[in-house]
């Protein structure tokens, strides 16, 4: 795939062609290919995607902002969209869009992964190896295996009257779920894919489940219970419950009352967000408005860091944008038609000093939880959740013991203090090892949650 030049050329032509119509024009363009091979027990289903183009347009004219979207690089259609956007403008907070500039060293997708997009048979082979290895290890002892090997290649360019910027990224991801409970993941954004690691995913998930199951009434754990959160679950909790609490526009709307330096967490908690983190799947130099991304403190030594800001919300607050303006789609929205909303990017947390096995050992009786069911339905206004456990293990006598019977355990808590009750970050222990989920680099976190 050619690196971005045609996206920039198209957008620059559109900006030029509409110069007399607008005060400024922002053209967000994306070109993507996503191939996957689904695994359903013994069956493999290749699902390919040819090149898809996305164009999101924002116009500024006399203090009004307009929007349009299309899925082709056609100048005539795009100009029509510009004119329709101008006819339906709304009051704008901005005078100009961002001043984008072509980067001398843009983030570039790994060439080997880009070339794999033209040879999807490699994904098919990896999915087949995963399936075969799982059944070799598990035999007929599993009810179901489902999974996927997936390749995503994406180029994004942002162009305004102030210039253009562009980058590309690519990732291969593998996932295997055994008995609809335990999932194991693999991801890479560069170099060769570790095919052996992909092949082992199902077998690893199977091995993890080779323990008896335990229901809540057997363990007699109720009320406030020590719980160790797997980094994958911790990431989900931080993203879903934190999405409004760290958002600058939510702060302006009165939905997030924390101020910088407010004490919100255990002093051991230092959490930041950094889309430029070099290895992750979210790596990018700029947000969807062309604002440069950088390391951004969310919680520092237990104190609230700074809110995240898009161009528009930053202008309203009188602060600098932080590179968190994203075309974040919700439900049936496509990225090109989604409004620019603030969004957390790659998360990272400082590790602690105890190894995971020590954390488990000092826990005595408690839970190690990997995944919750329906976490997306959490109460974002209050940053609280109450969900059934989808995947987790009991800790009994300081050792991982049994599999939590799916659907029988319920956990609840909240990110920050609420109605006089402490948030789950308030008193924590962090593991010294961190796991990189692809989109976050986090330790295991031990806290107390209501069971």
């Amino acid at each position, binding site marked *: 795939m050619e690196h971005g030049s045609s996206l920039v050329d198209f957008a620059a032509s559109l900006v030029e062609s509409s110069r007399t119509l607008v005060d400024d024009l922002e053209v967000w363009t994306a070109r993507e290919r996503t191939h996957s091979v689904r695994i359903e027990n013994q069956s493999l289903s290749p699902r390919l995607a040819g090149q898809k183009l996305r164009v999101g347009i924002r116009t500024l004219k006399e203090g009004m902002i307009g929007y349009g979207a299309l899925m082709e690089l056609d100048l005539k259609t795009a100009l029509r969209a510009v004119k329709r956007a101008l006819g339906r403008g709304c009051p704008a907070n901005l005078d100009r869009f961002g001043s984008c500039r072509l980067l001398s060293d843009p983030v570039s997708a790994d060439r080997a992964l880009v070339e794999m997009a033209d040879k999807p048979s490699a994904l098919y082979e990896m999915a087949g190896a995963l399936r075969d290895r799982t059944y070799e290890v598990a035999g007929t002892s599993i009810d179901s295996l489902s999974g996927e090997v997936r390749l995503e290649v994406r180029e994004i360019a942002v162009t305004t009257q102030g210039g253009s910027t562009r980058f590309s990224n690519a990732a291969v991801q593998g996932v295997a779920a055994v008995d609809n409970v335990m999932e194991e993941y693999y991801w890479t954004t560069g170099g060769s894919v570790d095919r052996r690691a992909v092949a082992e995913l199902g077998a690893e998930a199977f091995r993890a489940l080779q323990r008896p199951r335990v229901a809540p009434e057997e363990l007699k754990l109720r009320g406030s219970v020590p719980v160790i959160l797997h980094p994958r679950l911790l990431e989900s909790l931080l993203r879903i419950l934190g999405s409004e609490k760290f958002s600058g526009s939510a702060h302006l709307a009165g939905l997030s009352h924390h101020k910088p330096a407010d004490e919100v967490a255990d002093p051991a908690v230092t959490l930041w967000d950094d889309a430029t983190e070099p290895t992750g799947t979210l790596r990018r130099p700029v947000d969807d408005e062309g604002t440069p991304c950088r390391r951004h403190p969310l919680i520092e030594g237990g104190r609230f860091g700074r809110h995240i800001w898009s161009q528009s919300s930053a202008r309203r607050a009188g602060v600098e944008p932080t590179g968190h303006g994203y075309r974040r789609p919700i439900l049936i929205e496509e990225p090109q038609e989604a409004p620019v909303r603030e969004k957390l990017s790659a998360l990272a947390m400082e590790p602690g000093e105890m190894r995971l096995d020590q954390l488990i050992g000092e826990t005595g009786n408690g839970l190690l939880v990997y995944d919750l069911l329906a976490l997306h339905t959490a109460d974002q206004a209050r940053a*609280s959740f109450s969900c059934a456990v989808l995947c987790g293990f009991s800790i009994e006598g300081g050792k991982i013991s049994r599999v939590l019977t799916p659907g029988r355990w319920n956990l609840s808590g909240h990110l920050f203090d609420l109605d006089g009750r402490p948030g789950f970050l308030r008193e924590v222990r962090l593991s010294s090892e961190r796991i990189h989920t692809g989109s976050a680099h986090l330790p295991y976190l031990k806290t107390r949650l209501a069971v």
Partner: protein
Amino acid sequence: MTEGPVLSDEAALKDLADAILDHVQPRCTYADLLAEVVTKTEVNLLSSGELVAKAYTGKAAIQVRMVGSEGRHVEISLGLGSFETLKPDLDGALDLLALVQPDPDYGLADVPNPDRQRYGFTPDPDIRTTDAGGGLLAIVEEIQATARQVCDKLAEEGRTIQLVPEVWAYSLVEEKLVMDMRGLFKTQVLPTTFVQLLSRARENDKLAQTRIRFGDIRSLSHLLDGGHLKPAYSALVCDCMERSIALLGTGRLTEAQLEELTHIVLAPSAMVFIHEAQGHNFEADIIQRNGSGLFDPQGNAAVDPLGSALVDLYDGPPCDGEGRLLADRGFGTQFIDDEGVELQRVALVQQGRITGRLHNRQTAYYYQETPNGHGFSELGDIRVVRMTNTYLFPADRAHWTDSLEELVADIGRGILLEGSFGGAVSKEGMSTSIQFGRRIVDGRLTGEIFGPLNLTVKTLGALAGIEGFAGVPDMEGIGFCGKEYQTKPVTDGGPYTRIAVSDAITLGY
């Protein structure tokens, strides 16, 4: 239903489809194609107060399914472009088709009624040619004005409440073409209009939220009367805001109060339980992969009866209170699915016994049953088995009262659950966030409201405790169901439903 209209750019789309099918035919035993073109006008009111009005957005995609010998199969999603630009990707898919292993279980059932070609209706106003975004802006302005009025009224009573309404509203027209290399040709033109209000209330440091959604497979005019929201929808908006305020500072049920509950009563707005705990388990692709809690992979029911004999459960076009089908209504309804199969109402459960399941063409072939129009794709993605409108309906009149008051009259300690923020399912059961509950004490609904609760329901046993129903079934619980990276509009509903508490149902925090 009358014959549907032609697509707006049908000749060009058909030419492209013909070229694709002609190209792949020599290397396939079968191929079919879905093309979807969506034109939309949309408004977002963000929580920041920023208004985003999109007068026009256009999107389109094609899905091509290629089947080779011995069940080999590959599917590819393409953007809309000239045949020459799509050809390299098609060739790549054909090359892969030659490499993949046989899949002897794979096949596609025939499309019933292949001769009928056109479905749907022409929208009015037609947003493909008319900028109707002003109507959506009027809705947003009305919602903002309602928020101001509610806050002003409370200010007169000495309360300083801030309401932050977040609105998402759209009107779209989806045009669909389904063709195969054996001559199948079907089209559908379908408008849809939708409004979502997320109302957040704030008083000092207390925050609470509620959400409503309304919409149908209708044009924008369906919601408006003289440029304003119809009174029924205005009332929903006002009610949503007032409820978010009522939830400020509400308490939690104590452990003792939770343990003494003998019954829960689900309002129609809390029926996501039917979609999650039951509906997904009837999707035949989930059954085939051994992910259903109700069937084994061979398609045998895991339990009989599944539920109380009072219960019928359906998926398909909705019905009125007398059970008469409303074939052209329902936010989840389409006339044909994305494989060209006409949508059927499927009786999933009748009098508590399992009687059906949901199919696309592939699962219908696998189970040697007739496809029933439940194979859907999100904009050119793979077609998987999906629900449309899923609802409970009383199997008889004997346990169906007119009023909610009658239904709860002999409940000692219970709770009425209303609203949901969605849910998710596993093989064993489901979990959903209920917006709020109202306590029932000694046969009467109290004024005590309790804020968000979690309802967990086991798939097996969930319907067994149903003891009765009240009121006219409401099938307008709108949701967006996620499955395999795709999102599909659906509804769930039914009448007020009374369920005895058992170990299949857990309510808590």
